[in-house]
């Protein structure tokens, strides 16, 4: 199968003649990654409904192609910053689901010893500088990481994932301005899932989104965020561009979250229709789209896809079990780690 390389494609975002195509093995790997995220999030939802998980969580289901398509174009030593909807970014950057579940459940074995939880999960070894519960704040930190990478001449790139709601934050424009002035190696990835919480983004966002980074002289590409192949090829190009010292880039991904703003957001008809939800989950699903394409290419069939899903499901199942069984932190940890 490895030899079965993708032929040159003409769809926008897909590789031109000169670019090296992606192995079918790699697409299968990305399918697995997307499925792991979906399976992880479905478990999170269950932990919430069964009242096992403290607090709330924001599910990434529907948006998997973005985290996976982008992170597969990164090195382990590259940085990302994430958001309140951050489990997908964290997994895609290489975190292991058992320690993630432990964190979400407030356990000592969690990535942050149970002190961060869903909205602050971070994985220093994997280059994830953290989810952030302040909308837009990750863009500042990622720009700082890119600044530091440039100062240290380290060849690292930083990626900041954020929802279109962050377009309302002045911080984003301040740091994009500096990133462009100083040619920082950063990719801003805007996940436009159409809603700032419960408000359609059209009500909050004037003009064209892509015109905003463009005004700072930042290279912008807009892609179908449900198509992992387009996301990946475009991200690869923009990350290479940033790494080569040409400056920041902005990747606008059009996407949709299938579930509520958070796990408790059940009745949504006052802000979006059931038909709209159904359209995205049936016609625009990133997993289905990739599976269909892989099958068409002869790179996969139902049994291969089923096998991947079965393995991933088992992994996530074991991970959630690990999280549930893991002990809580010792009470004496409460005032540890305030200062270094």
């Amino acid at each position, binding site marked *: 199968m490895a030899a079965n390389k993708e032929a040159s494609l003409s769809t926008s975002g897909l590789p031109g003649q000169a670019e090296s195509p992606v192995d079918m093995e790699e697409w299968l790997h990305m399918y697995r990654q997307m499925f792991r995220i979906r399976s992880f999030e479905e478990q999170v939802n269950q932990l919430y409904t069964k009242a096992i998980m403290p607090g709330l969580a924001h599910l990434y289901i529907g948006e998997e192609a973005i985290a996976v398509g982008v992170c597969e174009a990164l090195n382990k030593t590259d940085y990302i910053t994430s958001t309140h909807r951050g489990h997908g970014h964290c997994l895609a950057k290489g975190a292991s689901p058992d320690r993630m579940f432990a964190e979400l459940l407030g356990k000592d074995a969690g*990535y942050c010893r149970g002190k961060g939880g869903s909205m602050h999960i971070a994985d220093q070894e994997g280059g994830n500088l953290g989810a952030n519960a302040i909308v837009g*704040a990750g863009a500042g*930190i990622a720009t*700082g990481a890119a600044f530091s990478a440039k*100062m240290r001449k380290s060849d690292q790139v930083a990626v900041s994932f954020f929802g279109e709601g962050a377009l309302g934050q002045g911080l984003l424009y301040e740091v994009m301005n500096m990133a462009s002035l100083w040619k920082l190696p950063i990719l801003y990835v805007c996940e436009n899932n159409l809603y700032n919480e419960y408000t359609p983004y059209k009500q909050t966002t004037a003009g064209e989104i892509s015109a905003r980074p463009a005004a700072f002289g930042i290279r912008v590409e807009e892609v179908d965020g449900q198509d992992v192949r387009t996301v990946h090829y475009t991200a690869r190009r923009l990350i290479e561009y940033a790494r080569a010292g040409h400056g920041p880039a902005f990747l606008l991904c059009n996407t949709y979250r299938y579930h509520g703003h958070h796990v408790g957001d059940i009745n949504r008809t006052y802000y979006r229709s059931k038909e709209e939800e159904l359209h995205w989950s049936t016609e625009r699903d990133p997993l289905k789209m990739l599976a269909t394409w892989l099958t068409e290419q002869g790179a996969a069939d139902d049994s291969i896809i089923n096998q991947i899903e079965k393995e991933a499901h088992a992994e996530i199942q074991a991970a959630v079990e690990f999280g549930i069984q893991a002990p809580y932190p010792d009470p004496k940890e409460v005032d540890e780690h*305030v200062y270094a």
Partner: protein
Amino acid sequence: MSTHKTSAPATARVSRANGEPVHNKAEREITMAQAVREALAEEMRRDPRVFIMGEDVAEAGTPFKVLLGLVDEFGTDRVIDTPISEPGFCAIGVGAAMTGMRPVIDIMFGDFLTLTMDQIANQAAKIRYMSGGKFKVPIVFRTTLGATRRSAAQHSQSLHAWPSHVPGLKVALPSTPYDAKGLLKTAIRDDNPVVYFEDKMNFQTKGLVPEGEILIPFGVADIKRSGTDITLVATSSMVYVALGAADKLKEIGISAEVIDPRTLFPLDKQTLIDSARKTSRAIIIDEGYERYGVTGELASVIADGAFYYLDAPVKRMGAMDVPIPFSPALEDLTVPTAETVFQAAKTLCGRS
């Protein structure tokens, strides 16, 4: 006697009774501004990860000229002029600190802390804790405090109580050139976010400072003047106000001890308590707004630790609870002066 808060001598000849180790190096008289510059230059020479970022910090050396000349030695790669984007460059500092650098972020006026509080209080202060101790954020936010510069309500505030309120931050506020140098060098080497305040009225104040290495540990108060009858705990330039008051008190036979905590967090509670136990009376003098302020916190430390030794309630003297007015006739009324402290101390000592 002037009512102006900076009526204290221009040269900071204050003792270091609590003292740092005696230095063999030559001591020279330099200004607060020179001391700050010297600390930065020494740390930047020592550690290539240290850099300075802020508005007009490079060729202009800040509007206060404190950083003048640093760019000549370290270049614009390490002394970096930014757009007027306080949240933005503070955020870049935080991200850089998390990934191996040691930024010193220049916030021109302490009043602009209002714009940066998400970066300082929600990001820098919490990242270590939220990550379960994985990340550290070694960053210094250098800014100013202090009224009586006729700069009105948005350029005169002393907001050091704000970061002092937030776990995860350290706060230093030197009163003398010696302390300015020693505390800034310590701040830069600290692995935690430190907010460091200089009184903008004191940049030309002179004092003896040794050449080369001085590191003042955080959480060690300094007894600026020893006394037996009343304790005056004073921060930043209020130390000079307290020393001025102590001079006047001496004339009427009252011996005042003047203590400068130097860092609000960590706080050297014991030195404050010991002094109050000895003198049995205490006044806290600070230029932040009096209500819910530093004076309240320090007064409670003394009330708690020296209760059975006190002969009078602990007195608080902060800035008047009004936005700082422009008119000199009004502005001077809003901050403690040597005269007002003298009067309060006299009353506390039962002398009318």
